[in-house]
């Protein structure tokens, strides 16, 4: 009988837990060191991006002009948009960004005054407003709480659903193992955002929620296999052996399915990065990390916790 169990995965369960613990510790350290960069939608404030173009060919902006214009822009912005504004100019792509951090919405009259004053001070430069974002403190706070709550709700619903579904192989053992592995997936995808310095916004939260729904599939595949083997072998085989056998059986399926999704995400990252659409690439980062992690957590963490809990309760 024992020859059937090709892998002896459960004899190394402490190593898996150590890996998971190391991942979380490293992630927490990265978070502490780099801090969380929240986008304007989640941290109140305003951001205006303008493009500029000199109207006469003789008006080429030199390096000294650039410093001058940044100072000029800052002065104009502070006069018209408020004291807590800061302007940064990117000469290469002919753009400048106005950021306001006073937690108030910049109204459109102020924007108009800013543009009017600019065109008076720099008549030979044409300005075009490319994008504008402004969010009040209450909305930003509410959106952040909603996003975190939504992750919590998905977390609870998915765990509950899987626990009910596999209650025959112990409701609580499945519940705890599913909870732990989902939590690790979530944390790793969150750490990946921090690591790559991606601004946290509602899109990122939505992507994490979406990928949570997809990453539990690996657990479903594993627990399906465990349930089948448990039914087939009954009490004649230990929990560790059932887990070993189930991991061996579902290993290829979990890898193939997750590879498909990871490849999709990688293709998106490559294409969007080539075209410079980094806003889309950024959305794929948590997906890739979450899927890689869920392959590990579902196969090794979820199964090892399930085995350990059942062995302890025996």
């Amino acid at each position: 009988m024992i020859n059937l169990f090709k892998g002896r995965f459960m004899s190394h369960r402490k190593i898996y837990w150590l890996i998971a613990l190391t991942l979380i510790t490293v992630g927490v350290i990265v978070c502490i060191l780099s801090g969380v960069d929240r986008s304007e939608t989640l941290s109140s404030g305003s951001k205006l991006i303008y493009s500029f173009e000199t109207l006469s060919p003789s008006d080429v902006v030199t390096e000294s002009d650039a410093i001058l214009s940044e100072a000029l822009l800052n002065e104009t912005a502070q006069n018209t948009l408020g004291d807590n504004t800061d302007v940064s100019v990117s000469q290469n792509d002919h753009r400048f960004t106005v950021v306001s951090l006073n937690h108030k919405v910049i109204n459109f009259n102020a924007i108009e005054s800013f543009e009017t004053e600019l065109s008076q001070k720099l008549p030979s430069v044409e300005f075009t407003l490319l994008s504008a974002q402004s969010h009040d403190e209450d909305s930003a706070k509410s959106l952040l709480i909603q996003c975190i709550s939504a992750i919590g709700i998905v977390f609870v619903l998915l765990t509950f659903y899987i626990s009910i579904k596999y209650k025959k192989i112990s409701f609580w053992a499945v519940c705890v193992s599913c909870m732990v592995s989902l939590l690790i997936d979530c944390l790793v995808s969150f750490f990946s955002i921090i690591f790559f310095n991606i601004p946290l916004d509602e899109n990122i939260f939505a992507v994490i929620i979406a990928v949570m729904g997809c990453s539990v599939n690996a657990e479903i595949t594993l627990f399906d296999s465990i349930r089948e083997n448990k039914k087939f072998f009954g009490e004649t085989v230990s929990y560790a052996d059932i887990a070993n056998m189930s991991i061996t059986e579902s290993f290829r399926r979990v890898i193939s399915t997750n590879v498909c999704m990871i490849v999709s995400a990688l293709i998106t990252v490559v294409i969007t990065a080539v075209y410079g659409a980094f806003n889309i690439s950024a959305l794929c980062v948590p997906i890739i990390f979450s899927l890689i992690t869920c392959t590990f957590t579902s196969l090794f963490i979820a199964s090892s916790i399930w085995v350990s809990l059942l062995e302890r309760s025996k």
Partner: protein
Amino acid sequence: MKQRGVKPWFFMLAVLIIGFSVLAFLGLKGTAGDFTRTYIRGIDDIVWDTASDGGFEITFTAEDGEEVRPERVRDAENIIEKRLAVFDLKSYDVSADLSERKIFVSAVWRDGEKSADISETVRDISMSANIIFIMGTPSSPDAMSDTDQFVLGGGNINSAEVKYTDDTHIRYIEIGLNQAGTQAALKLRSESPDKLITVWMDDECIYCAPASELFNEVGVVRFFNGDQGYSLDFAKRRVAYISAGALPFDIEPIRYGYVAQSDSIVSKEIMLVCAFVILAVICIFMIAYYKLSGVVAAISLIGQSAGIVAFITGFLNMDFIDPVPMSAPGIVGFMLTIGMGAYSSVIVNERIKDEVLKGKPLNSAVAAGCTISAESVIDGNLTAMISGIIIMGLSSGKDALCSWIMKPFFWMLPVVMSPSIYSLGYILFFGSILNFIFGVVLTGFMIKSLTYYEIFSDRSLYGGKILKEVDVK
């Protein structure tokens, strides 16, 4: 050769799926003269969100935190919607959160048009547009002297429309008044024909003329702009403002996002390229890895993608079917759904492969593989659907079903609209349903059908080793 009495399901379904996919991707359009009519919406008819196509999203609330009754918020929502109808926009959406007294407005610029001045657009949307007629020429309605007299108000206006003079075809604006208004107008015309009447929209004097000129013989108001007439755009806007009525309370933006068309157009193309490359790579992978079953999986994946496009565009070009605005997170949703489709195909094919390797006859192995895998695929899709519902609930501030489902969880928080993520939830939810239809039901039919053909009865085509044929009997 085919066994007798077996219907060619594979070929029938493959033709249907490919036909449907062609229609969903390319659409169906007819041309009559200069006019092109869309019967079925294709990829070209996808509506993109403001971040992808350029446009704006603004949340308005009552100015200075004024307490407003919910029905007045609804009135303001309707008025803003009527105003937006005359703006040169590709698409727009207005919704209200009655409990929080918020109005959400989102709109996408028309293709190829220069983005409008956002400050001007917001001013146009949020202006009160309160119309009053004053006999006299004050500097503003608030600075009326004792000799100035209020004559008519917005409440007296019944209708407004753009018209042309019969002889010279000059464009003018005609305002119809209610009974009380008409009586007052006729009285003014007969009793004080030479008195100047000024017409005000908020603080702006929009017209000034003697009573005999402003009101015609049947008491209708007419605005002329000399011999050249009004421009069509100006006239349409003014008519929209007059006929929609004044906003019942003053509003101010508390949250906004604006993207100029010039800054957004690139990513739209990239997103489509991404979607097609992902689909192509996964189809190639499936065919290379699972051979014949991989071909079936690829057909199903193409059908599933077409289904998602059909759900996004609305497929049939009918007024009551609204397309869902696509966004960058929506493309990520598409990518995940295709990944989920691949997941279903892998599960089904692996199960079939397992059954084939066990030495079962091909027909039974395929039937058993499809049955066993169905449960896992349903579970996998259900979890994705749960995520989809939560995302849709999180993103929509209006009285949508998903928001209603999420209300018990978010009741203590004010609603914040984030429409860009709606398409992600939408695609995840409907993509999962399609995944089950295409990935399990239709794939099962097609693979089972293929096993009845001698040419396709080689076990190696289904991932099994080349064994001696097991005696079916």
